[in-house]
């Protein structure tokens, strides 16, 4: 019997000792990794880098950034793209006047997630976690992270601040991983540019590779974003220098007239596109944005949330019928990734909606026009598509616009004419004598419709946003209140309200005026 007692005692003792050893209670989640150990070599650093791109790309649940909202925000809030109806996704960008801090779409969340991921990876890389990587590889990855971080800060300014006024309230700056009781202040717009956006992009220009494959940032992406940032700041000289330098030095070239429409197509080989400095790329249902991505949202067979206004459509039809850019405003089902498939009318015959002189084939709600800049890889599905975020032609516009503002009208005309000629070799070119800012902006509208630029271009330049009034017909546009019909950047809703959740969570946050 004593033996048994000894056995029990020995057992008890051994259990006590073995279990008590430090760390028995330290368990980890195998589906996830703790932040201290997630990156330990170059491969895992690249996996974390993909995580940054994933957040920029979004998913069906993270669609409040470049997955969809950031793009349609710039389109639908402007004057050439309209919401299909008042109840569709993103229509608050059209109706505007009902926006409050409580109901506004939260567009801070995903950019800050991008920033958080970038900061996290930068910290790990700076700590030397990627042990087997060369310094150049590490610097390139840090550069890509900094591009992401700069872009997200820049976009937050674009949405939530009077980014044209360096002294006005910008957004919080986040350059390291913060904990849950972080309660940042809104920094001045100028400070956000000078402390994050510009230095980060400059770092990337100096440290990133010139080609990381089509779906990844490189030094030229950084340079284009930098040029754009200068332009938004109103720093025309630096914008001009940065853009022209990019045009001269980068290996990128404009798509030809013939290749233009198909340039937007998803090319999964990851070969560098000649014009697109960066495209968000997808391969299938594991990395798509599904039915919440911009491609499906703009597709007439998808949720079809927006399309060209009647006036813009008529402009394309009457003035750009032979322009390659008209091919991407289509009326029939074209989803197989080809913009030149037979059987569709590149510029559809569409009635003015008055009901008079209507004939077969005219626009009805069932024969929509739609923006085909996000083409599907599969014949019946454009949920897997490329989202072209940055392309060289923007550098020409930046060069042209800043040259114009610097009174270099010949330069301005020269850069713009490259674009006009590519669109239609037979089109009338501009001259140093007749070029105007409106001509540049209107040409840019034709070049970049559906890519989220127009609204920002208008408010940057203190232009009115005219949806419809006595001179501009309403036609297909939903009825909206008078303040939303014509407004400028001084309107309350020209910038978005800080989401109420953020106001509640952070006592240091200040709401935008008027909300």
């Amino acid at each position, binding site marked *: *019997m004593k033996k048994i007692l000894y056995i029990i005692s020995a057992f008890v003792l051994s*259990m006590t000792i073995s279990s008590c050893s430090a760390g028995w209670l330290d*368990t980890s989640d195998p589906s*996830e990794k*703790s932040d201290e150990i997630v990156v330990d070599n170059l491969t895992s650093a690249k996996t974390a880098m993909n995580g940054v*791109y994933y957040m920029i790309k979004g998913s069906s649940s993270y669609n409040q950034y470049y997955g969809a909202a950031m793009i349609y925000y710039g389109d639908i809030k402007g004057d050439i793209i309209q919401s299909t109806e008042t109840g569709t996704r993103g229509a608050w960008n059209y109706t505007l006047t009902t926006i409050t801090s409580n109901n506004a779409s939260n567009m801070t969340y995903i950019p800050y997630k991008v920033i958080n*991921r970038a900061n996290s990876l930068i910290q790990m890389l700076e700590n030397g976690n990627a042990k087997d990587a060369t310094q150049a590889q590490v610097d390139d990855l840090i550069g890509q992270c900094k591009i992401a971080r700069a872009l997200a800060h820049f976009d937050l300014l674009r949405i939530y601040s009077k980014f044209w006024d360096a002294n006005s309230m910008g957004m919080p700056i986040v350059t390291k991983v913060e904990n849950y009781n972080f309660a940042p202040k809104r920094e001045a717009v100028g400070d956000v540019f000078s402390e994050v956006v510009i230095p980060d992009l400059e770092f990337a220009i100096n440290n990133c590779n010139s080609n990381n494959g089509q779906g990844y940032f490189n030094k030229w992406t950084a340079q284009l974003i930098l040029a754009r940032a200068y332009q938004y700041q109103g720093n025309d000289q630096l914008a001009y220098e940065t853009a022209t330098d990019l045009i001269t030095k980068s290996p990128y070239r404009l798509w030809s007239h013939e290749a233009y429409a198909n340039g937007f197509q998803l090319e999964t080989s990851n070969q560098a596109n000649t014009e697109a400095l960066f495209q968000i790329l997808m391969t299938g249902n594991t990395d798509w944005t599904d039915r919440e991505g911009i491609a499906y949202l703009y597709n007439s067979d998808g949720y079809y949330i927006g399309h060209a206004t009647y006036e813009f459509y008529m402009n394309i039809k009457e003035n750009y019928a032979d322009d390659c850019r008209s091919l991407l405003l289509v009326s029939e089902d074209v989803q197989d990734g080809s913009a030149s498939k037979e059987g569709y009318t590149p510029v559809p015959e569409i009635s003015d909606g008055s009901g008079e002189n209507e004939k077969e084939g005219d626009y009805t709600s069932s024969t929509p026009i739609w923006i085909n800049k996000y083409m599907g890889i599969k014949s019946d599905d454009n949920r897997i598509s490329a989202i072209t975020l940055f392309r060289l032609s923007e550098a020409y516009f930046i060069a042209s616009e800043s040259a114009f503002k610097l009174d270099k009208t010949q330069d301005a005309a020269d850069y713009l004419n490259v674009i006009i000629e590519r669109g239609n070799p037979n089109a009338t070119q501009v001259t140093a004598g007749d070029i105007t800012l409106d001509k540049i902006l209107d040409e840019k509208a034709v070049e970049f419709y559906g890519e989220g630029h127009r609204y920002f271009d208008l408010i940057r330049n203190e232009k009115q946003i005219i949806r419809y009034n006595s001179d501009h017909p309403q036609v297909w546009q939903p009825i909206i209140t008078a303040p939303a019909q014509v407004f400028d950047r001084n309107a309350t809703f020209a910038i978005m309200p800080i989401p109420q959740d953020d106001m509640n*969570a952070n006592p240091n946050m200040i709401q935008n005026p008027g909300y």
Partner: protein
Amino acid sequence: MKRLLAFLVCLTFGIGAVFAQNITASGVVVDELGDEVIGATVVLKGSKTGTATGMDGDFKLQVPEGSTLVFSMVGMKTEERKAGTNMRVVMENETSVLDEVVVTGYGTVKKSSFTGSASVISTAVLEEVPVVNLDAKLAGAAAGVSVGNSSGQPGGVESLRIRGAGSIMASNEPLYVIDGVPVNTENLAEFGYSESGTSSLSTLNSNDIESITIIKDAGAAAMYGSRAANGVVVITTKNGKVGRTNVQVRANWGFSNQAINYRPTLNGRDRREMLFFGLENYAKNDPDIKDPNKYAHDNIEKYASVPWSGYTNWKDVLMKTGSQSSYEASVQTGSETFNAFSSLAYNKNDGIFDRSGFERYAGRLNATFTGMKNLRVDVSSTFSRTKQDTYAEGTSFSSPIMALAFTVSPSDYPYNEDGSINITQGFPALSKPLANTLQSAKYNYSQNDINRFLGSVAAKYDIYNGLYAKQTLSYDNISTGQEVWWSPYTNDGSASDGVLQIFRTNFRTLTSQTHVGFVNTFNKVHNVDAVVGYEIEKHDNDYILANGSGFPDPDLNIIDNASTTKSYGSYQQRRMISYLASGNYNYNDTYYVGASIRRDGSSKFHRKHRWGDFWSLSGSWRVSNQEFFESAKTYVQDLRLRLSYGVNGNLPVSNYAYMSTYTFGNMYFGQQGTGPSRLAYKELTWEKNKAVNGGIDVAFLDRFNLVLDLYSRTTDDLLIPLAISSATGFTAININKGKISNKGVELSLRSNNIVTSDFSWSTTLNLAHNRNRLVYIDGDRRQMQVGSSVLINKVGHPFNSFYMLEYAGVDRETGKESFYTNSGENPREITTDASKASIAIGKQVDPRLTGGLINNLSYKGFDLGITMTFTLGGHGYNSASWVNADGGIYNYTGNIPSFYKIKDTWTKDNKDAKYPQFAYGNSSRTSTRWIFSTDHLRIKNVTLGYTIPRNLYRNTGISNIRLFSSAVNLLTFKPKNVVVDPELPSNRNGGIGSYGVVTFQTPPLRTVTFGVDLTF
């Protein structure tokens, strides 16, 4: 545990010296039924001389002539007799409530010396109640314990609330301890198509249970430390009784239907009439329509045509009578060296719809080895295989319960004229005919196949003079195989050419408990027991999910044959280490004090915040044992006062919530991506439940036993969702900051109304009132609401209060719904414009009073047990806005609840009508109009039995034959306008937002069975 005491008693007193000469007293000891009592202690009064009865209940003892013998046995009344030869001593079973035994898992104490608050439930009388889950048997049996389920499908998860809800983000379920070992009670269903879930308790045969103790206060529960905040349910399984060897065989058969008439709808003719009326009203409201009657005539066929087969009664088509059968055999034996109990049981339940069923094979072997000196070994083991079939519920379009209430109307027909299922015509509310619920029922299935082994071995060694050491090891292994099939022939699977999802999960729990204890009495009046312990628990679970779609041949639905497959898998683990110490002292069974402390370390927390200390203090005073009380004993036989205070804890649900981690699967351009998935909250710690309990136990007038408890429990460090700056990359985190309180009173009164040799009748009434308040959120924040939920959590109000427009009845002039404005200078102003009315905080979900009434009667061979349950003051919200719409579009495409009658709806000639105008195109608005009272009285279970007189089969080898009929949910009394089950589905996961809100959940089943019970 009774046996343990018996054994100890035998050990202490049974081995006495034998005196010389005198007489040899002899005889047998039997119980009331005439069965031999084995192992009873026979002692010469005033000495230590004694023996124990043998295998035939016999004893022999040499004692001085004329002396008195004392016969005693735990669980039986002590008898004193003059010594003689050939004595026949009848010992009666102990029935007094106050002498019940409370099993705390750390020992067994007489209820009279228990200082906390606990309810002891003997399940013997409930064995014949035809339910698969244990929880259903607990309904009404204990004050302050309420039972709810999410769905009436057999085998579904049931939830138990002890003294209200004390958590928001973590669990509100009690800890279950079986034979001393805490067990896994997770929902075993990974798929959520059915709302029932799969109860892990349903894998156990509840008839293997000997007794259940529900510990309600913090005093005794603190022994379980960090998991005891919601109370502890301590279950003891059966074991062999010394000296009794018998085989018991029981079988029963029965049928089921729904316990209430769930959401009745208008039949085809009445529906057409109502719809016609609604079309006419619509036309009358529109000045452009000249002839309303013609308009109605022109349009009625679209919605209420008579199908080829005549109007369909879909209840006949989809619903069936459920069935239930069970067979079980058990054997038990016991001697001084070995006790054992073994059982084998088979249960089969078929639900009231196709594809709903539950089948279980369960075996158990429990044994105790006591033949070795100072050593006792207990073994408890059970193995079960359970198969559960479920159908979709809630608002899944294949839900048959929704179909009957909403989506399939009498104008839709189930079969074509050639007998095939109609999948081409009608079913507008389901949006396509292919969604015909019959089609899904025929081709789709969802099942969960569970194997479970749960076993424990405990060795107890008596070291010296009441000092013992005990080591328990336990292992619990649950593996599930869940399979959901959506056939390409059905609406679920047609788009993907069939979808098969297979979930395989494993849950493994290893527990070790090492205890050293001491029990002794000094100077006859100082009773001491104490235990120190060290326990560890290691739990891990893993899963594999395979998903296949695109099946060329729907009959060959295995993953191999799918054209597209995806798979997922992971594992998780959690661990815990505990140190504990507990001591009880009582002076002469009059003054009692107890204290316990436990230190728990959990892997769910950061190293620095991992350890939590939980403790309790308790005391009681048995006033009736005082000398001055003697004179009152004529009226009051027993009086005891109790007081306890303790702190215990509640763990967060997630195993890794404190960590900042990276999640994978964030794919970019076909490659793995990863990013932070969770913000670190290293300070994460236990929710702490601080509870004080005061109680009084009285036995009076030789007939009544009263237990009254007052309690207050407050949860500190309550986990609440905190909104954080999105600049962190995250928007919310759960932090320990809130506070919630539950205060209440419980009363349990038992009365032995009539006790005669032929007839006995006893009644137990349990009543409880609980008041729940959210005390604090996180400072400035006074309220929390999830999305557009109809519930709000507001400081000063009960957790989960309804929050919506306040309905003010039908507007006499327009026939529209009207609402109180609840704003401005005159909040009682009434408006029909909902936009002018403000939402207001309304009624609470939880009832103000819950209770149970139990009656047990026996007359000669007959016995009858009835348990009734009732609640008062609770509310639910009928969220079926599709049909609660006064002529909304779904009333036209689907069904109309049968409470709609033309004469009750507003017309210009009937301005005081109960309901608004019924008109095509109306819509439903969330308001207090759809709040209903859950007041009800339910005859929860009834068992009627007849034991055939034994003289009829004296020589057949059968010792007992009993015939019985048992029913569950036999009758329900509720307000007429309540169309769903008044026992609300309770949100088993806690959380905010859906508690008390009902859409389409299967009501509980009414099951009636008949059976026979044979003992050999």
